[in-house]
């Protein structure tokens, strides 16, 4: 499998932070095509900032970015805005943590799902709608036609997150950034979303960077995991290996933080 994303010595510093404190402090990792990498760490460890820098959502006015992010061999650090815009929603898409606030409250779900097509393709309205209905079905939403015409406040959190996933996959991206996509959902829905992501990964050969503070969830989905602490990558490897034999004290603590019943189940 060929390498999709290669990050080398990525360093992100926010202007309003203390000089010695980097949000992301020289991390390197890579993701192959169709690969799933879990990125774990506590709040403030730099996971989300890393993901945002990968999809160009980091406000470059507020932060310095250095190092290298190669996506399909092309450099994303300090690239042109046009290049970023051409990737966003096309090659790279994102699923965020809070499905309710991540949706435009006054726009129909269907129009939000097909938005990436509106931006990146010249498909007609009818073609876009057909693709959106297909994507909603792929995200295992019952009655896609009905969901298409609903507004976000009319759906439950789990259904909304499925719709967000439908919106993210509609353009068949090579890389999906999933930023704590299950954190705001209850446990049974969490498991369904994980299953759905796994299915989409296998069917579409879509690589996933799965960000979570929950190692238990990561273990269900990912083959490889990288552990972040205070902006640094402290451990990386096969997820089962790390569970069996954590090298770092911090990783041990993260594993210890999983409720025992869940640990037994997994």
């Amino acid at each position, binding site marked *: 499998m060929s390498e999709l994303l290669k990050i080398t010595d990525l360093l992100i510093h926010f202007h309003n932070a203390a000089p010695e404190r980097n949000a992301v402090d020289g991390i390197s990792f890579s993701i192959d095509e169709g690969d799933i990498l879990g990125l774990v760490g506590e709040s403030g460890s730099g996971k989300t900032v890393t993901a945002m820098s990968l*999809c160009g*959502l980091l406000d470059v006015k507020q932060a310095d970015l250095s190092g290298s992010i190669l996506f399909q061999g092309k450099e994303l650090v300090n690239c042109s*805005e046009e290049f970023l*815009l*051409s*990737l*966003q*929603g*096309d090659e790279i*898409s*994102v699923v*965020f943590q*809070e499905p309710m*606030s*991540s*949706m*435009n*409250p*006054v*726009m129909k779900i269907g129009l*939000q799902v097909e*938005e*990436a097509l509106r*931006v*990146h393709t010249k498909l007609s309205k009818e073609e876009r709608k057909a693709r959106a209905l297909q994507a909603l079905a792929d995200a295992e939403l019952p009655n896609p036609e009905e969901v298409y015409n609903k*507004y976000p*406040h*009319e759906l439950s959190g789990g259904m909304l997150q499925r719709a*967000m996933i439908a*919106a993210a996959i509609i353009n068949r991206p090579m890389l999906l950034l999933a930023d704590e996509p299950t954190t705001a959902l209850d446990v049974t829905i969490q498991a369904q979303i994980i299953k759905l992501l796994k299915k989409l990964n296998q069917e579409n050969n879509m690589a996933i960077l799965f960000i979570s503070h929950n190692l238990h969830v990561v273990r269900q989905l990912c083959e490889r995991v990288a552990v972040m602490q205070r902006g640094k990558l402290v451990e990386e490897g096969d997820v089962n290996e790390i569970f069996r034999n954590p090298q770092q004290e911090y990783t041990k603590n993260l594993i210890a933080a999983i409720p025992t019943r869940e640990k037994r189940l997994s």
Partner: protein
Amino acid sequence: MKYVIKKVIALIITLLVVSFLAFLAFQIIPGDPTTRILGSEATPEMVAALREQMGLNRPMLLRYLDWLGNFVRGNYGTSFTYKVSVNSLLADKLPVTILLTALSFIITGVVAIPLGILAGSVKSKIIDKIVIIIDQIVMSVPAFFIGMIVCFLFGILFRLFVPGQFVPLETDWRACIAYLVFPAVSIAIPRIAMTVKMLRSSILNQLGQDYVRTARSRGNNRRQYLFKHVIRNAMIPVITFLAISLAEIMTGTIIIEQVFTIPGIGRLLISSIGTRDFPVVQAIVVLIAAWIVIVNFAADIINQVVDPRMRNR
């Protein structure tokens, strides 16, 4: 349907309360319509006779119910001063005030909405600061003062119109509108400043919302996410504000009509309060109250169209 019935009941209750309060106010404030009619030389006997004739000696509640009964039947009574029916007085003055209000509101909307969007989406910090400062200054100047400045600048210096020489609608509607544009602008200017400030902060607030980040993650450029996502959300509070503005512009005309000597409802109201011409005042007060309730009702409906979360309540 249930919603409409609820609103109509609210309208009726509001009008009852407002008209009663206006009625009450006339009992409390000193002054008597009879002295205006008879003059200061009148003997107490003459006053008493006229009061009896006008029915002013009957209990207040009875008189209110009388008035209400007539009002419901569409008979607003007869003016004490002009000796003509209030209906015909209003029919005469109302079109001018409505025209002035409409002109002023249109100017406010047409100028403020694009300016507000511009102020909310401009990225330059310096321009933003300048806009805020100008906005703050303009906002705090009352409309009647702006009216005086407009009279001076455009009336006396540039001679674009003759202050005080109002052209009635029937004589020449074009000249009438051309005259009304100046008072309309005077009322609109502080309103524009307020609306711009409101829309600007609403847009800035919306720009920080999560859904904007989502829209950006789909490759929308700044113009696209502003116009496809942000502005519609940002307009929701502004619509309510514009509705309140529409109500306040109507009441604002009362003062501006004095400044520009326009024979509208406002001038009629002020002169009628002076002469204790109670039927006229009562009719105008109820009219303004009804206007405010109806405008708010309209704002509710528009908000429901724009914001699906407001529907089915």
